[in-house]
């Protein structure tokens, strides 16, 4: 966990003071909405259908128990007692009043949290693997590099008014859990043939109206060049990205229009002129940032303690949960526990203040005070001793956070959709809820195996529907909600965009279509070992399309 020092805390406090002044000027009429809007957006304040919304950054998805308790406090005091975790590892509150926002932000600043750059045309929250620092398959902790980038781009004098938002992701594991290729700019730490660790640089990914996967423009970048390279990419984009059309303003369009090679040339030229300047990272600088990441003082424990095995034998529900929600930790005797925010009939990603408080207590007791947020809108306790798993499970179960559906059909990624969002064309949440009710039977879900459903309520694709195994996109036709279905998308190492299977279906039929697709898979698979996505790759979408539209 990164420990804020006086510099970090001063900056956040000064930001709150500035925002308080801006809100006062808006409320007094000194600022028009046109003038105020870009300012509030730079602080994560949107205006949604019913109220203002505040989005709070959780850099690289790491939260302390103290921060989580403060989020619970903000939910209770300024909102309606809950918050919504997003696909950018952030949390947002949907019912905030503008006049109370400066106070809410001051309360957050007290624990080093803020809404800076969670909206607006700047560099957004830097994301990474939610298992960073604990995953057995990573070469080093990517959060150190994410933090170096985070600091550099915060209130950056050159890149706070870019053509459009800019999303950066850093990964360091052999398995991509952070969806690198759907980012504007992504860095994958790996070792070159000489054994040196450096970054593969990918640029130009993004979903939305024109989805693209990021392309590699540099297979290996030395660590010392990370910031100067970020600067060169951002400078190229800031100058040449389109500003005449909001739908063509993301860097992916610039990369596509120029071609990745020409874009890379432009970046390299700029980079050559700055790489040996003040942004070159020396070992002392990196060590300074790294030194402020504090790691748990783990006990020396053996894997597979007997009390765990006994508990698994004694209780089938516990055993199923362990199989589903518990992952290997790089430290022996420990485990990573994923907490499902996808209960049957619930809103994906929502957590109540009661859950947040209780979870903060659990984190203190069992996870060295640390909580993680994943882009799949679930949470994790990253450092649980295996012997504590039965106790953790009982507590989570009582909180409604132990649904053993991680990675299964009811573990749905969904944007807030038309129930909250002013951009949405159609609702997302009730579609997700209905699907979880249809697949109520956990044995059936387990039989279907790994199956990712992603739902977006409009083309902006906050629910990442393009990269869902089953993608659902809400559209509007003559005032009615309709949904386009895509199949075969993937966000991980084999990132690929899904294919539209046919005409959009009405609201009431979406869950039926998902059931048809699931049934088609069960018929088509070679056996229970062939995953949904693998069957789809083998057969193509045609047999699924036939199944869905035959009856319609």
């Amino acid at each position: 966990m990164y420990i804020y020092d006086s510099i970090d805390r001063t900056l956040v406090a000064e930001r709150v003071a500035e925002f308080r002044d801006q809100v006062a000027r808006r409320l007094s009429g000194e600022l028009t909405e046109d003038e105020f809007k870009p300012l509030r957006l730079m602080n994560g304040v949107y205006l949604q259908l019913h109220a203002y919304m505040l989005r709070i950054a959780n850099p690289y998805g790491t939260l302390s128990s103290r921060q989580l308790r403060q989020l619970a406090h903000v939910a209770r005091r300024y909102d309606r007692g809950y918050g919504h975790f997003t696909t950018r590892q952030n949390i947002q509150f949907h019912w905030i009043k503008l006049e109370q926002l400066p106070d809410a932000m001051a309360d957050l600043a007290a624990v080093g949290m803020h809404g800076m750059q969670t909206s607006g045309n700047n560099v957004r929250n830097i994301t990474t693997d939610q298992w960073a620092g604990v995953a057995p398959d990573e070469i080093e902790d990517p959060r150190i590099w994410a933090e170096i980038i985070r600091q550099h781009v915060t209130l950056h004098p050159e890149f706070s008014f870019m053509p459009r938002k800019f999303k950066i992701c850093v990964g360091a594991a052999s398995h991509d859990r952070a969806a690198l290729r759907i980012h504007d700019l992504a860095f994958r730490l790996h070792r070159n043939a000489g054994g040196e660790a450096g970054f593969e640089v990918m640029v130009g990914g993004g979903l939305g109206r024109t989805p693209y996967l990021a392309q590699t423009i540099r297979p290996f970048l030395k660590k010392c060049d990370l910031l100067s390279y970020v600067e060169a990419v951002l400078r190229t984009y800031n100058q040449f990205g389109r500003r005449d059309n909001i739908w063509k303003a993301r860097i992916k369009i610039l990369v596509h229009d120029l071609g990745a090679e020409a874009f890379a040339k432009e970046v390299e030229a700029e980079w050559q002129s700055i790489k040996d300047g003040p942004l070159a990272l020396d070992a002392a600088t990196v060590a300074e940032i790294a030194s402020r990441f504090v790691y748990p003082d783990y006990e020396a424990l053996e894997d597979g303690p007997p009390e765990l095995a006994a508990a698994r034998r004694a209780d089938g529900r516990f055993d199923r949960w362990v199989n589903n929600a518990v992952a290997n930790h790089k430290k022996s005797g420990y485990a990573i526990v994923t907490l499902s925010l996808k209960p049957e009939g619930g809103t994906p990603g929502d957590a109540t203040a009661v859950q947040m408080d209780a979870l903060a207590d659990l984190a203190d007791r069992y996870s060295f005070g640390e909580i993680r947020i994943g882009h799949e809108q679930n949470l994790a306790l990253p450092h649980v001793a295996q012997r504590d798993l039965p106790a953790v499970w009982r507590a989570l179960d009582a909180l409604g956070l132990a649904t053993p559906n991680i990675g299964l059909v009811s573990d749905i990624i969904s944007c807030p959709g038309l129930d909250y969002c002013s951009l949405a064309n159609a609702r997302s949440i009730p579609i997700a809820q209905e699907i979880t009710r249809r697949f109520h039977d956990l044995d059936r879900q387990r039989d279907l195996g790994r199956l990712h459903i992603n739902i977006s309520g409009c083309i902006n694709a906050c629910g990442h529907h393009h990269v869902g195994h089953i993608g659902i996109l809400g559209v509007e036709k003559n005032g009615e909600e309709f949904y386009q279905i895509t199949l075969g998308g993937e966000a991980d190492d084999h990132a690929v965009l899904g294919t539209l299977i046919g005409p959009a279906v009405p609201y009431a039929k979406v869950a039926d279509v998902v059931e048809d697709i699931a049934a088609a898979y069960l018929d088509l698979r070679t056996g229970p070992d062939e995953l949904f996505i693998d069957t789809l790759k083998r057969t193509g979408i045609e047999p699924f399309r036939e199944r869905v539209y035959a009856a319609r």
Partner: protein
Amino acid sequence: MPLVENGRIVEDRYVRVAADGPIPERVPIIVPAQRFLAEADSLVRRDGSLGVDWPNDRRVAELEPWLGHLALIALNFPKFKDGRAYSQARLLRETYSFGGMLRATGEVLRDQFHFLVRAGFDSFEVKKPADAAVFAEVLARYSVYYQPGADGRAPALRRRLQGGAAPKVRETA
């Protein structure tokens, strides 16, 4: 539209000349980009400070041959949200070592001041008189920054290495 330089509201010494028409003698002038490029050879020999009004969609590299003769470059913010001139300013200062004045024109509001100063601007045509009046006050909003900037303040990383930060508080977040 008040002009702010050195933290104070000042008279504008420069005269803006049109795309055509006469060029006054000996007074400081700001010439539109097209005309500047067309007449640069004679303009740089003229007696009196020379400035150019440079649009935000042209590469500043085009100005390189003339930078030694330019006392001022005016860069434009057609909208608050259009931040291309920040990159132009940094390129001029850092890549081309331009030592003259950089003037921000257009939609220049108080909430940009610290970005502008740190990108290398030192002359500001401020849209609202009320904003110009609080220029210095607004710049004092922030006492720390993470990245190096043209205002010469030590970035956070360097301050930490030099022990310039207040003692670390070993307190989570």
